[in-house]
């Protein structure tokens, strides 16, 4: 029956979604509660004394004006710097689409049922996309609760776009994980490759930022993290070409995974 896999995956995943969402929400809340501890004007003066490459490396870069606001502190200090943490959940979920169940033999049972491989992949992908939305919504809730508890006076509305911009980023990471798993077959191989990809991307982004104005700067552009810039989002709102890029690449990777998974042996 169409939708049965989607519903079951959601039943199996909601607790993990809640755990991850609440954990990240707690982290967000903590960062928000820290805001009153800093005088943003002093912070700005202090940061202005830093060499530009240091500012770039800690993710502030040319966003000093933005960073020295309550919302900027949360956007860049939490959302910008925690991008690597946000990539962990979609990797875990992406591994579950095929690699984990293939490795432990569950996929044999599932694919012996009247359901196509494509249907299994698409329904699982969609279910995990919903769980990503759930995690991000909980993070947003964490920001809001932190603001209320600490009476911080954040303009939470300005952080809405920074928060929900995480959704296409996380879906992109999950799609990449799914593709690697479809290609690599073995869970551990897939996990190793996707971990290397994510860490390398994060490193390239950092190098690209630190090397602003040098020949190494373009390195940052090949990192998918570079298209989630909390400072830019806070200034400009949703950057639609970047979002469209994440979505388009995710769909391409979903399609490539379907083609590859349809053609190869399962569980060998």
């Amino acid at each position, binding site marked *: *029956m169409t939708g*049965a896999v989607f519903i079951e995956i959601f039943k199996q995943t909601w607790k993990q979604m809640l755990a991850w969402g609440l954990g990240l929400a707690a982290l967000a809340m903590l960062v928000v509660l820290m805001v009153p501890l800093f005088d943003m004007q002093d912070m700005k003066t202090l940061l202005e004394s830093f060499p530009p490459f240091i500012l770039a490396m800690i993710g502030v870069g040319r966003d000093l004006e933005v960073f020295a606001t309550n919302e900027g502190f949360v956007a860049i200090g939490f959302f910008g710097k925690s991008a690597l943490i946000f990539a962990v959940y979609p990797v875990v979920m992406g591994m579950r689409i095929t690699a984990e169940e293939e490795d432990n033999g*569950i996929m044999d*049972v599932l*694919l012996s049922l*009247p359901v196509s491989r494509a249907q299994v992949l698409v329904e699982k992908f969609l279910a995990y996309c919903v769980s990503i939305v759930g995690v991000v919504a909980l993070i947003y809730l964490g920001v809001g609760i932190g603001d209320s508890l600490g009476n911080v006076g954040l303009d939470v509305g300005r952080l809405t776009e920074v928060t929900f911009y995480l959704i296409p980023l996380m879906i992109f990471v999950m799609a990449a994980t799914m593709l690697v798993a479809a290609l690599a077959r073995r869970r551990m191989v897939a996990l190793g490759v996707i971990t290397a990809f994510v860490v390398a991307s994060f490193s390239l982004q950092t190098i690209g930022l630190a090397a602003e104005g040098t020949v190494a700067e373009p390195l940052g552009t090949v990192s998918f993290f570079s298209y989630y810039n909390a400072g830019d989002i806070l200034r400009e709102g949703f950057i639609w070409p970047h979002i469209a890029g994440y979505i388009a690449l995710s769909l391409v990777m979903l399609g490539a995974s379907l083609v590859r998974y349809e053609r190869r*042996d399962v569980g060998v």
Partner: protein
Amino acid sequence: MAASSVIDIKGLSKIYGSGSKATVALDKLTLQVQPGEIFGYLGPNGAGKTTTIRVLLDLIRPSSGSASIFGMDARQQSVEIHQRIGFLPGELSLWQGRSGAQVIHYIASVRGDIKSIVKQAEELAARLKLDISKKVRDLSSGNKRKLGLVIAMMHSPDLLILDEPTNGLDPLVQQTFHELMNEFRDKGKTVFLSSHVLSEVQAICDRVGILRDGDLKAVQSVDALTDVKFRWVHVQFRDGVPAEVAQGLRNLPAVSEFNADGPHARMRLQGDFDPLLRTLGAGYVEQLHVEEPTLEDIFLAYYSGEGAGA
């Protein structure tokens, strides 16, 4: 005849790897399974039984040849075929954190007719004395196997494909399993089961295919296969094997491959026990043990011309 076969495999080969690392798992396998029969797919571990089953289920793709079930191509029409089959894998893995009832409900929901499938699953679970309220991770291997059987049979499939179905089942449950299979056959349905246990195949199968190194050696009725008429006899004497007894046993036409080691003697007996027992009488026998031929013995006997029909 082939058109009415439930399973029709033609020239099926499966080669893993390539070049010097290529391994032939199946070699031009051709086999038909007829409606209403319990077909035993017999062979030692690594013979290619599971590979055949995985091709039939479209989990792996053949290197050459074709397989069809109910006249439908196993690859192109796998979803339609899977609607009518039940499958129990050799190594069953299920969702550890879900209860048996939840797993049953999930699989029933994929199959579509949740209410009637779940009802039948509960009846089967009761027959197999399986508590489906327990989480999968808390089930013993035998109970997990029972759950696998329930899942395979709960939607009343037309064809059951079972890979080593009684692995880990205690003898009482094996008996229930045999009853279930016979009832299944009585309804005109078909069973394709793989095994390396001869007694299991003898107990329930109508016909047997013998697979070895990916090659189907023969398809026989069970009676013909097991009519090899030899046994292994182990004798333990109190004071070593007496020389006259050893000589007498060697001279018996029915005894071959005689081997004495200290107080122990092992021999192959073809035919009646009486001449052997009379010869043993000259010594003091402490223990006598008769061993049924193994599947490997039957293979060897069969191909050396001593087996059924030979």
